[in-house]
């Protein structure tokens, strides 16, 4: 990017001719933007399989008793739904798709630090995904443990647990390598003159996320290997009959899986932090507080895993300690929410689909977050543990939070990624449908959860039927909204109106370059601002 080179002819990364042609130009791509898209296509495919499984569960729950499947089959369906959605959709989700695509651009780099390692991460992501599919088809039958693989049931059931856990193990490697790549990228590849506190806040969120991916994921790897060793060689780690401790599995599992929640949520918060200043044309309120709160969430988030184990027989001292820490971790999340809302104050707000998605995110995230405090407090947790209340809570966080942030991100960056614009009106209609469907689907589960409806049950007493029916209807409304959104975006990618380089008047670096970007992003050296959110 020196000033001495003559002007390079602009060619979009989508049209760039490299060594390979056709499909191979994608499978062998080391360009971070193509890898981001590859992740996106894979993840959206898995997401829709997960949605179909979710709808099957909603059909089963329309009436008490056996409706469309047996209890055993229902167990397998929610297990696969969980494995797909957690390990193959929401954990890689934002960081692998939008992190890959936009992290280098936002910090003024031409690629990530290790492009070939990045390609390798995608390959093993696909290998892991194929293994997850195989675990459903092999002769012992699909696993029925739930995505949490709790011992000792998972060490004794006859279903195909080894293949499923091995798949999660391989998927974990993909996550670790992406995290490593991003940490090095942020440390080494920032444009000359860009200090850490000159970076936009999405890279800050990705940085905190990458540390979690790097440090927490090995724990689940070890845990799943221990589980496999216990199944295969009868080594007594977890099964009390063999001298093990089942709580050890829960400790190890949640030492990873609680921080994993922040692998999903931190980039989601980062996306929202990019969108709100753009559509308010206003400097983000409390830049440093938002940046540091990402690190604080990552750090404290490592120490709260025990709130998943209040009813498991842990010591009382541990229970109050985890409860205290859980309340502390809510503080940096709340800082972000207050700062987003304060940013809007006296802004010149342009109500476009990405901004509306961000508002929907904040609304749903607040419901998910505050019900999380109910679960974080030992006394109330004991009442609602393993009920539909928990299901409603984490869907508000993961789907209402991470999912809606993903939709916000795709509507925000779509014109940059494809150089075309979608139908704004249809985008708004699909958002309203999804929002209504979402709340109909999950809100009733808070109520029946408090009344005692357990999670993971395919049957229920008649008193819960009205709420279950509302929930099922909401599920289908939500699915229709999702379908509308995908239709709108696919149509726009093919034949949408050509989008200008900066349709939203954004101030960060991605809006300085043409849409879609060229192979090396910056054909001319970018202008690095000390304040990335300067709209004057």
């Amino acid at each position: 990017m020196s000033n001495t080179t003559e002007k390079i002819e602009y060619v979009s990364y989508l049209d760039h001719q490299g060594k390979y042609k056709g499909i191979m130009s994608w499978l062998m791509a080391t360009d971070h933007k193509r890898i981001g898209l590859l992740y996106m296509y894979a993840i959206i495919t898995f997401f829709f399989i997960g949605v179909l499984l979710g709808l099957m569960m909603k059909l089963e729950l329309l009436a008490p008793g056996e409706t469309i499947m047996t209890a055993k089959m229902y167990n397998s369906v929610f297990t696969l739904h969980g494995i797909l959605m957690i390990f193959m959709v929401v954990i890689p989700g934002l960081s692998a798709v939008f992190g890959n695509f936009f992290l280098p651009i936002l910090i003024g780099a031409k690629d990530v630090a290790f492009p070939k390692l990045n390609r390798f991460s995608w390959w093993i992501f696909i290998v892991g995904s194929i293994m997850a599919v195989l675990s459903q088809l092999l002769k012992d039958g699909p696993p029925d443990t739930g995505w949490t693989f709790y011992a000792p049931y998972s060490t004794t059931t006859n279903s195909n647990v080894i293949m499923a856990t091995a798949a999660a193990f391989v998927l974990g490697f993909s996550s670790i390598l992406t995290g490593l790549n991003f940490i090095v990228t942020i440390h080494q590849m920032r444009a000359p003159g860009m200090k850490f506190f000159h970076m936009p806040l999405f890279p800050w969120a990705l940085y905190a996320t990458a540390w979690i991916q790097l440090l927490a994921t090995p724990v689940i790897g070890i845990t799943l290997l221990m589980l496999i060793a216990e199944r295969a060689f009868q080594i007594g780690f977890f099964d009390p009959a063999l001298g093990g401790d089942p709580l050890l599995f829960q400790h190890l599992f949640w030492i990873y899986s609680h921080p994993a929640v922040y692998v999903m949520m931190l980039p989601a918060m980062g996306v929202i932090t990019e969108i709100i200043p753009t559509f308010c044309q206003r400097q983000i309120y409390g830049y440093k507080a938002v940046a540091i709160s990402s690190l604080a969430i990552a750090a404290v988030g490592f120490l709260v895993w025990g709130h998943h184990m209040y009813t498991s027989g842990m010591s009382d001292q541990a229970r109050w300690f985890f409860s205290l820490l859980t309340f502390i971790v809510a503080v940096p999340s709340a800082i972000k929410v207050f700062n987003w809302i304060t940013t809007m104050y006296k802004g010149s707000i342009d109500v476009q689909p990405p901004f509306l998605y961000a508002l929907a995110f904040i609304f749903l995230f607040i419901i998910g977050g505050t019900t999380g405090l109910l679960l974080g407090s030992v006394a109330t947790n004991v009442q609602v543990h393993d009920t539909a209340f928990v299901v409603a809570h984490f869907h508000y966080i993961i789907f209402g939070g991470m999912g809606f942030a993903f939709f916000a991100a795709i509507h925000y960056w779509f014109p940059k990624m494809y150089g075309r614009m979608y139908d704004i009106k249809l985008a708004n209609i699909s958002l309203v449908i999804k929002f209504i469907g979402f709340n109909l689907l999950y809100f009733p589960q808070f109520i029946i959860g408090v009344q005692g409806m357990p999670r993971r049950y395919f049957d229920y007493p008649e008193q819960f039927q009205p709420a279950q029916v509302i929930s099922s209807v909401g599920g289908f409304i939500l699915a229709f909204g999702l379908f509308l959104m995908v239709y709108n975006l696919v149509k726009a990618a093919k034949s949408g109106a050509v989008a200008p380089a900066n349709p939203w008047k954004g101030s960060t670096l991605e809006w300085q370059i043409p849409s879609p970007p060229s192979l090396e992003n910056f054909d001319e050296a970018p202008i690095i601002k000390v304040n990335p959110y300067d709209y004057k």
Partner: protein
Amino acid sequence: MANNTTHTIEYKTLVKILLILLFLTFITISVTSIHLGALTVTVALLIAGAKAYLVLSNFMHLKYESLLLRILVAMVFVLFALILVITFIDYAFR
């Protein structure tokens, strides 16, 4: 990386560190014959921590790296220690 200069450590130093590591391994093994009760794990981890420090700073050249990088690596070990301590709040009081 703060700079691109290469650092060579003399063989004499490397051998010295190797001997210290072997000595610490010997202690780890011999200490198992003494019954320390609840402290067994603590002692083993402290010795392992000392060994990790020697390997990281000398063999992996961490002592020549920037302060930021050394702090980042130190934080990882602090985190690891915290996670162990918190886990033992359960095991010790159950």
